[in-house]
């Protein structure tokens, strides 16, 4: 049978977290202050503290094994927690790359030693992670990256430059994708490494982004010497490893977006209601209905992904389908915001502040983690079997 229900235990889990959030969210959360402190120096400890409290309460690493500090539950509980955190637009973490990317890769490919060291420290926020994948000349064509790691006695020596490295200015650890065999075809000679950002030769330079904030960076590697056993998974097999795990993560790590987007949308609806002429206008009503339907489709897609995983099936191109769907939908929601607020969307009305910021901020969503164009290629080639 089709069964889209949750068990009584899962519903109880949801209500426990809902109660915990009601008591533990920062005061006034839900007012105009949705994004935490504007100043990055204040925001970083705020985010760190929030994630530590979530961990202490048992709401991090939910579907990760208990042996490494996780909660040992399933992807369904992970989805439920994501929905509840998104529903109240809970603060976004500072260690999201660790938890959404590094953790799953380490759990899939790491040695026992790596799992035992990396995962618990990540969950406790002892380590904050960044991701050194993209480069100035290797964006969508990631496998064309040039950063080299060369063996020299009992070390690897890394040289190169990474770009769009979110959280690098806060991170003390980095997962790096580097070329270890320059003679192999470009997808074959890549290796994943785990390294310490304090290693001599690592330089981080923040980039100011379209919003005016600085959340990502350029990272330079100048003769950086890292231990020989710092690689994750087999040497020269980093590409397939990274791509496999990234595909899964693209589908599951960010379930919270759906309920977060819904919370944003419902805030917009409240603003629309306050403008009674627009709330009665068929154009606004049609757009409101269309977007609610799309938000609900997004949730159904997430439920399908979770259902597939807990029923023992693989996740493939679904990840690209969902990512393409939500990223473009989210931008349509901001278009709707701009119509609701009209000139106030670009002026200083506090009610519109969140959406003014988000409009700029989410230009990134159709670009990062594979642009919409790359997702369409993946869907066309891997799901539909069309030629290159």
């Amino acid at each position, binding site marked *: 049978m089709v069964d889209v229900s949750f068990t009584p235990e899962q519903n109880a889990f949801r209500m426990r977290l809902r109660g915990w959030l009601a008591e533990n969210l920062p005061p006034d959360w839900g007012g105009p202050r949705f994004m935490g402190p504007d100043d990055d120096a204040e925001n970083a400890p705020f985010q760190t503290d929030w994630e530590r409290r979530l961990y202490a309460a048992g709401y991090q690493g939910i579907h990760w094994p208990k042996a490494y500090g996780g909660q040992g539950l399933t992807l369904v509980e992970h989805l439920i927690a994501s929905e509840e955190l998104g529903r109240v637009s809970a603060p976004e973490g500072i260690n999201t790359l660790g938890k959404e990317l590094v953790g799953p890769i380490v759990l899939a490919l790491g040695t026992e030693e790596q799992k035992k060291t990396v995962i618990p420290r990540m969950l406790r926020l002892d380590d904050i992670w960044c991701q050194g994948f993209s480069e100035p000349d290797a964006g969508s064509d990631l496998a064309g990256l040039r950063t080299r790691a060369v063996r020299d006695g009992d070390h690897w020596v890394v040289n190169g430059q990474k770009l769009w490295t979110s959280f690098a200015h806060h991170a003390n650890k980095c997962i790096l994708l580097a070329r270890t065999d320059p003679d192999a075809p470009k997808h074959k000679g890549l290796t994943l490494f785990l390294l310490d950002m304090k290693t001599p030769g690592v330089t981080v330079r923040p980039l100011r982004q379209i919003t005016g904030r600085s959340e990502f960076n350029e990272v330079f590697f100048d003769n950086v010497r890292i231990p020989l056993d710092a690689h994750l998974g087999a040497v020269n097999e980093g590409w397939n490893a990274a791509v496999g795990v990234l595909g899964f993560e693209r589908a599951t790590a960010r379930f919270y977006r759906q309920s977060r987007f819904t919370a944003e949308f419902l805030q917009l609806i409240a603003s629309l209601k306050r403008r009674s002429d627009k709330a009665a206008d068929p154009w606004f009503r049609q757009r409101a209905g269309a977007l609610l339907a799309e938000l609900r489709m997004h949730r159904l897609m997430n439920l399908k992904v979770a259902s597939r995983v807990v029923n023992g099936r693989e996740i493939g191109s679904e990840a690209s389908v969902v990512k393409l769907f939500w990223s473009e939908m989210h931008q349509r929601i901001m278009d709707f915001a701009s119509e609701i607020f009209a000139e106030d969307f670009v002026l200083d009305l506090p009610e519109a502040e969140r959406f003014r910021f988000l409009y700029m901020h989410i230009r990134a969503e159709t670009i990062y983690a594979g642009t919409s164009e790359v997702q369409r*290629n993946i869907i066309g080639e891997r799901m539909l*079997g069309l030629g290159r």
Partner: protein
Amino acid sequence: MHFDFSFEQRTLAESVAKILKSFPPVTQAAPYPYDAGQPMKALAALGLFGEGEEGSPLGHTDAVAVAMEAGRTIVAAPVVEALAVAVALSGSRPDIASRLAAGEVPGVAVSGGIERIGGELSGEAIVPHGAAAGFLLLPVAGEGARDWILVEPGDVEAAPVETTDITSGAARLKISGLPAPAAGNGADGMDRALRLFALAEIVGAADACLERTVAYISERKQFGKPIGSNQAVKHMAADCAVSLEAMKAAVEYAGWALDEAQEDTAAAEEASLALLSAASYVGEHGRRVAERCVQMHGGIAFTWDYGLHLPLRRILFRTATLARMRDGREGLAAHLLD
């Protein structure tokens, strides 16, 4: 949590597909040469509508799986209508159940307006396969709640009507001063079932269009390579695939939600939202997928004989009568704003 059809539901859908595919493909326009009675008898023989007066064993989700197959085949028979009668009425109306189970063609109004004034019915209705209908079910407004009422074909005037969907066999019924039978069985369940299965049929039809299109653009070469390897075409196909994932989830979920609502009235609001959302999304994207499939094919799709217009016509017919995105969206807006 198992958000997918079960093995039994897949088997059922496969059996239905096999039956529907055994009828000659629809390739000609009017005069209407198809006998809707044969496919209906074959589906009844499969046990889809139960035995005698017992009523159909199908739930909403099962019927969604079957309606999607009807969309994939575009058979000239009122499968959607029969499913709605089976799921929404046959359990409480032994008289209707036995006629459906015997393979009679149900003539179900999908458009029009019939009113009860005093003890009489008057108005017009559009009924797919009206000429072949063994019994008619008409939605009636007027004094009291809206209702579905059983009418005998001999009691009404029916004339063939040309519709966009040349496979619909539609008839226009004209009723004037017909003595109204006793009250029927309430409108909500039948309305919802009819809309949901029409949406599911659209999704199945769009799915088959994309399947056929992907095969074509993988073969068809221009400038020395398959046209589907060009990003402009590939990306259009990818967008269709994304819409289809959402559409399938929408009708499967709405089916589940309606089944839940049978036992739990608290689930009724969620079922209603699920159905409105499906109408909003499928009402726009069902036809959009079929239109894009015509575009991706190029000139061949514009020919009558290639037949890609048949699912497009079916989708357009269903969308305009039972699956209007505007209605879905206004319903959701009312939930949000009023």
